[in-house]
């Protein structure tokens, strides 16, 4: 592999950093280069250390890593991040020591400038991905955590689907057309959006279930639901608690935890797919939601906007279903509890749930959701 050499004195000008980081990174690199020139020793360990310091500074600024590099110390005592980790983290921004040309000469000691970076708990470095988030643990500095990306929770497929073409999970010919579904990878998903129709819950261990949790609270409802609205009950984490006649505030709160978001819910009527929110079932009859909205007792308290109306219609239907009411006009496909886990196991535990059991419920709910709607499965195997 060939690289063009970079003179240490010109280091700051050689890379195309994102504009918002350029100034800060330039300052940090400049301090390190001043130090390098001031304390220069023509030895391999010294040069390796300076290269490590430059790469550490890049990681601190671009990737929000934390490291306290005290330039008042001798070079061999200055703290840096691990070289292999830096290589992995920085990719093409990583500069190996072999690439640096030392256009300096031995100089006098004693620069006392300090680069100190606030210790950070969370950073967001996930590449635009099919939804994989990376957790990087440093062996010799404060562990950093990459926030779980919202995309990890989506019910949409990962951006880059992975599957094993040697393992067809379903392979059938129906009406002269071949239908194949291959087993998706990884076999044990590490993020929620990797769960597919081929995921087998029996292969999971307890720690596999726990890996599926996000490492922070992720808002899954529409943004407007997280703003207080008039006198409506409001939970600082869950947002607006809609008033639904016949159900208490606690029951609705529980419903929000169990069903944190709704994705493409439809109802089939006369072989036509209709949006689930567009119609409301009342006493066994189906009505256009907007035409009966004003007659509903709860509508006096709820804003007449699509986000609120959609949530009201679905949550009311789910509360009725879960309390034993049998609807005449069912939803297309299944919708079970804990289709998405949107916060940490600790928070679920504080709400009174068993995190391992919720992990099982997540997989069961997602697999059921997908299988009940998958057109190939419905065509080849059928689904109620």
């Amino acid at each position, binding site marked *: *592999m*060939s690289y063009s050499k970079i003179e240490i004195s010109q280091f700051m000008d050689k890379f195309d950093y994102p504009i918002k980081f350029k100034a800060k990174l330039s300052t940090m690199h400049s301090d390190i280069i001043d130090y390098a020139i001031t304390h220069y020793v023509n030895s391999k360990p010294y040069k390796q250390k300076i290269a490590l310091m430059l790469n550490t500074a890049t990681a601190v600024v671009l990737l929000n890593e934390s490291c306290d590099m005290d330039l008042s110390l001798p070079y061999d005592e200055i703290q840096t991040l691990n070289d292999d980790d830096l290589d992995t983290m920085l990719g*093409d921004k990583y500069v190996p020591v072999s690439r640096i040309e030392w256009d300096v000469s031995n100089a006098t000691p004693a620069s006392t400038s300090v680069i100190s970076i606030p210790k950070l708990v969370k950073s967001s470095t996930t590449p635009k991905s099919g939804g994989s988030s990376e957790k990087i643990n440093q062996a010799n500095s404060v562990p950093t955590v990459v926030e779980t990306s919202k995309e990890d929770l989506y019910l949409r497929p990962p951006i880059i*689907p992975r599957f094993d073409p040697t393992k067809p999970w379903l392979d059938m010919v129906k009406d002269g057309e071949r239908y194949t579904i291959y087993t998706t990878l990884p076999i044990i998903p590490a993020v929620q959006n990797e769960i597919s129709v081929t995921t087998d819950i029996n292969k999971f261990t307890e720690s596999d279930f726990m890996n599926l949790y996000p490492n922070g609270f992720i808002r899954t409802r529409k943004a407007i639901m997280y703003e207080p609205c008039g006198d409506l009950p409001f939970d600082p984490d869950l947002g607006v608690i809609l008033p639904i006649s016949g159900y208490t505030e606690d029951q609705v709160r529980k419903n929000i935890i169990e069903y944190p978001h709704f994705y493409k819910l439809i109802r089939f009527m006369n072989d036509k797919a209709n949006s689930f929110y567009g119609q409301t079932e009342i006493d066994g009859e189906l009505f256009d939601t907007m035409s009966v909205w004003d007659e509903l007792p709860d509508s006096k308290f709820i804003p007449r906007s699509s986000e609120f109306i959609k949530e009201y219609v679905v949550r009311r239907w789910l509360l009725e279903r879960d309390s034993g009411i049998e609807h005449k006009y069912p939803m297309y496909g299944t919708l079970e509890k804990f289709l998405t886990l949107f916060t940490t196991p600790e928070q679920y535990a504080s709400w009174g749930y068993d995190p391992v059991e919720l992990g099982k419920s997540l997989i069961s709910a997602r697999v059921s959701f997908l299988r009940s709607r998958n057109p*190939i499965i419905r065509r080849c195997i059928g689904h109620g």
Partner: protein
Amino acid sequence: MDNCIFAPFCTLPICDKACPSLVETSYLFERNGCSLKGNVPGSSAKDILKVQRILHADNKLKVTIADDTSTLANLLTYCGICENWQGNRLHCNVYHLKYSAYLDSVQRSWGLKDMPESLEYTQIWLNTAKILIISNLDFVKFQDFQSQTLLNIIHDRISNGLTTIVVSPKLSTLVGSGVFFNRIKTMLEEAVISV
């Protein structure tokens, strides 16, 4: 359908050949000769992350060095298609150019009265694709024509703001001679990214 990468996740009401996702992705896979029965969709998450770093790197010209250029180029093509298929309206916005085969086609066309349609389309795609992946440099003996052609492709694409990724073996192993070969080698060396 047996060639849809989204089949295990699909929740659309109907699966048929008119499905937009199937149409747009299978068009690109077909244009690029991608087989979903090969080992590319089963690549490891680590390899895919590496490839994504290449795809997302800032430069318009990126050169990546690999021992197995064929596998890397195929994986780059697959990931590039997965990230860019939506809304392509059946335009070839990701294209994998096998450079040695392309040169053969060009040279064969010199003896023909009209340029073959397939070659015309190849030239359209390599000039307009949002992401062009060039491989098979190791099967080319770079003399003036071969070097100039590659320089022209790269220069035209850079000036149009399009991304070009060259997958090459170690640059020191490329075979060639002449002023233009040295020029293309220098250009590729300066564009090498490591992942």
